[in-house]
C-alpha cells in the first residue's frame, strides 16, 4: 500500500511552498484585500511560469499532462498561502468543464490559454440567496442569447469568460439547464464588484443582456455535467481548505508558544492545549479523507462521488474549526486587522460556500453512502 504522495510529488509541494511563501506573502495578500485589483496579477504570471495551471491539462492542449495528484499538492499550497488568484475558478472548474464537455475545437481554443494563464475562466451559477438547484436557475438562454443576472460570481471580475448555467426550456427540472461559454468582455455583459466577507477573492454581480453564449456540452445536459465536474473540483478545493487549516493550526501553535500570560506561555495551559489538540485532530481527519479524494480523482474511481463529498465535508469543517480557533488562541490580537488570522477566517468561510455549501455536500455524501449500502 502506498496511500501517500510520492517523493516527486512531495518535492513539487516543497517547490510550490517556497514559491508561494515568496510571492504570496501575507503582505501581498493584503494588497488585494485592501485594494481595487481583482487578483494578484504578478502572482498569476509567476504561477503560469511555474507551469502550475497546466498541471493536469493534457499535453495536446498545452498542459503538462501530469496527474491530479500533482494538482492536489499545488492546491494545498495555494490554500496555505491564501493565494489571491482565481486558480480554482479557472483550473478546478472552468478547465474541468471544458475537458468534461468541450468539443475538440473548444478544447483547442480554450485549454492552452487556460494552461498558460492567458485566459481566466469562472463559473456563473448562483442567482441570489440559497444554494443553486435546477429550480433556482432563472437566467435564460434563447437562440444562443443569454439574459439575466448571476450573483455572486466568484472571480467574476478577474475572469475573461464564464461558464454560465442557463435555462433552455421551461419548467424546473434538471434537463432544462444547459451550459454556455460567455465572453465577459463582450457585448451584452455588465459586471460589478460586490462587497464580500473575503475580498482577497473578489466576486461580481454579472448581468447578461442578450450576450452571445457558446454552448458547452449537449443542450439539457448542463446540470448533469456540472454535478460531475463539481465532484472533481470538490476534491481539489478540499486540498486548498486543508492547506489553510494546517497553516491556521501552525499560527495558533506558534503564538501559544510565544505569548506569555500569568508568567507562562499560554500554550502550557490545558484549555489552550486541548483546543490546539482538537484542531490537530480535525486537520488530520481532513488530510486522511483528502488523500482518499485524491486517490479517487487521480484514478477516476467508481468511489469518486463518495470520496469527493467525504473530503469536501471534512475539509470544510476542519478549515472553519482551525481558522476560528486560531483567532481564539490569539485573543484580542486575533481580532485586529493587523494580525493575519482574519485572512484565514475569511477564506475558510468563503471556501465553505463555493461549489455548494456544507449542507449540499452533506446531502450528496449521505445519498451516495446510502446508494452504496443498498447495492
Amino acid at each position, binding site marked *: 500500500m502506498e496511500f501517500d504522495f510520492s517523493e516527486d510529488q512531495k518535492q513539487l509541494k516543497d517547490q510550490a511552498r517556497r514559491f508561494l511563501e515568496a510571492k504570496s506573502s501575507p503582505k501581498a495578500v493584503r494588497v488585494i484585500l485592501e485594494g481595487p485589483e481583482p487578483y494578484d496579477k504578478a502572482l498569476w504570471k509567476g504561477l503560469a511560469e511555474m507551469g502550475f495551471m497546466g498541471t493536469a491539462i493534457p499535453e495536446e492542449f498545452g498542459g503538462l499532462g501530469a496527474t491530479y495528484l500533482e494538482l492536489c499538492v499545488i492546491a494545498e499550497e495555494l490554500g496555505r498561502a491564501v493565494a489571491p488568484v482565481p486558480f480554482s475558478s479557472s483550473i478546478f472548474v472552468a478547465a474541468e468543464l471544458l475537458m468534461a464537455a468541450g468539443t475538440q475545437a473548444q478544447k483547442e481554443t480554450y485549454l492552452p490559454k487556460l494552461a498558460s494563464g492567458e485566459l481566466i475562466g469562472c463559473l456563473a451559477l448562483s442567482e441570489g440567496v440559497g444554494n443553486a438547484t435546477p429550480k433556482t436557475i432563472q437566467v435564460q438562454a434563447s437562440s444562443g442569447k443569454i439574459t439575466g443576472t448571476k450573483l455572486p460570481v466568484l472571480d467574476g471580475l478577474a475572469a475573461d469568460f464564464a461558464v454560465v448555467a442557463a435555462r433552455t426550456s421551461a419548467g424546473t427540472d434538471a434537463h432544462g439547464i444547459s451550459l454556455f461559454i460567455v465572453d465577459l468582455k463582450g457585448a451584452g455583459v455588465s459586471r460589478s464588484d460586490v462587497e464580500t466577507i473575503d475580498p482577497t477573492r473578489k466576486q461580481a454581480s454579472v448581468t447578461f443582456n442578450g450576450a452571445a453564449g457558446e454552448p458547452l456540452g449537449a443542450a439539457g445536459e448542463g446540470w448533469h455535467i456540472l454535478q460531475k465536474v463539481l465532484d472533481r473540483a470538490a476534491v481539489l478545493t478540499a486540498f486548498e481548505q486543508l492547506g489553510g487549516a494546517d497553516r491556521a493550526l501552525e499560527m495558533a501553535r506558534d503564538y501559544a508558544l510565544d505569548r506569555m500570560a500569568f508568567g507562562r506561555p499560554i500554550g502550557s495551559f490545558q484549555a489552550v492545549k*486541548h483546543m490546539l489538540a482538537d484542531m490537530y485532530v480535525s486537520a488530520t481527519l481532513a488530510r486522511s479523507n483528502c488523500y482518499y479524494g485524491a486517490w479517487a480523482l487521480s484514478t477516476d474511481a467508481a468511489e469518486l462521488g463518495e470520496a469527493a463529498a467525504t473530503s469536501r465535508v471534512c475539509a470544510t469543517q476542519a478549515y472553519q474549526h482551525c481558522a476560528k480557533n486560531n483567532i481564539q488562541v490569539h485573543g484580542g490580537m486575533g481580532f485586529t486587522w493587523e494580525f493575519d488570522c482574519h485572512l484565514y477566517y475569511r477564506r475558510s468561510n468563503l471556501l465553505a460556500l463555493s461549489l455548494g455549501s456544507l449542507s449540499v455536500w452533506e446531502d450528496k455524501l449521505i445519498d451516495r453512502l446510502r446508494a452504496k449500502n443498498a447495492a
Partner: protein
Amino acid sequence: MNFDDTPQEAEFRKSVRAWLDANAPKQFEAGLRNSGFGHTALEGVDVMKASKDWQRKKYDAGWACLHWPKEYGGRGATPIERVIWQQEEGVYASLSSLFIIGHGMCGPTMMAFASEEHKQKFLPPLAAGENIWCQLFSEPAGGSDLAGLRTKAEKDGDDWIINGQKIWTSGAHYSDYGILITRTDPTVPKHKGLTMFFLDMRSPGIEIRPIKQVNGQSGFNEVYFTDVRIPDSQRLGKVGEGWSVSLTTLMNERLSIGAGMPTGFPELLDFCTRLETADGPAIDDRNVRSKLATWAVRTSGLKYTAFRSISALSKGETPGPENSIGKLVAGPTMQEIATFALDLQGEAGALLSPEHAAANARFQAMLLRSPATRVEGGTDEILRNIIAERVLGLPADIRVDKAVPFNQIPTKGR
C-alpha cells in the same frame, strides 16, 4: 497513491487467506459480526474455550503473535505482515480479546526485561493462549497520574513483600500471570521510586473483586495485595526504574495499529435507512443527514488515517503521530451516535431488553459502554495532552509534585 499490496505483501496475504479459509472457526462468524460495543451475540458459547482453542490453532500453525521472535512463540513477521494478518483475520480477531493485554503489553515487556530463562518459560505459553496475563498498573490514587501509585513492595531476603491495591485490572479474575508496578522507595520523587515485577496471579494474599460497571457487566477488577511474596528474580528492570519499564509497556500499546477504531457509524447508517418515521425513512430528514455526514467523515477519516500509517510501515518507515487521534475521535463519536440513535427511538429508546428495544438493543448497549471508551487506556484529556505536547510541541504541564519526595506530596483536596 494506491491501496495495492507489493508482490511480497500479496504473496503473504494469499497464504494468510488460504490458512484462514481452511481453519477459521466459521461457526462463530455470524455471532462475532453482530457483537461489539459491550454487546455479545455469541449465545450459549463458552467464549473462553472458543478463544483458547482458536489461539492454540493459530499458535500450532505459526500464526500467533506474528511480531514476536520465533524462539518465543511468534513468527518474526514484519509490522506490515502483522497488519495484513489483522486485516484478514477480521472478525475472528475479537475472539482473541482475552489475550490483547498479554500479547500487546505484558509479552513485549517481558521480552525487554525478563531473564532468558523466564522468557523461554513464559512467553510460548502466552503466545499459545495457554496462559492469560493482566496488567496491574492503575490504582485508586493513580489513574491518569499513574506515577502516583502507592502499592508498596518491601525487600525481605530474596523476596519482595507486596501490600496495597490495584484497580481497573481487565481480566484479573481469569488471568494466570500479571505485570505489577509498585513503589519501592517513597522517600524519592514519585517517578524515581517505582519497580516492576511479574507474578503468579494465584499467589497467596491476592484477592480479586470484580467491579460492577455502569452497563451491569464486570470486565474490570479491584485487586488487593496482602503480604504477597514475589521472588526478586521476577523483578523486571532495576529497582527504582519501574517508570521507564512501564513506558516500554505503554509504547507497545501505541505501536499497534488497527484498521481504524469502530465508531458505530455503519450501524447507525443502516438503522437510519430502515427506521420509518411519520415523514418516511429517518435518513431523509435534513437534521439526521447532517449529523450522519459528520460522523461519516470522522469514521472515514480514522480509516484512512490508519491507511497512512500502514503505508509508512509498508515502506519500512515508522508511522507518524497521526494515529494518536484514533481513540480520541472514536470514543466520543460512539457516545454521540448512541445518544442520537436513542433519540430517534423516542421514549422507546429507554428500552434495554433486545426483545423490546430497536435494533436488538445494540445502541442501548453502546450508550452504556461508551463512557468507558473515553476513559480506559488514557482519558480524552490525557490524549489531548499527549497530542499537544508530543505532536505539537507545547510545553508540559507545570507539575508541583515532580521534584518532591513522594511521601511529602499532599494527598487531600479539602
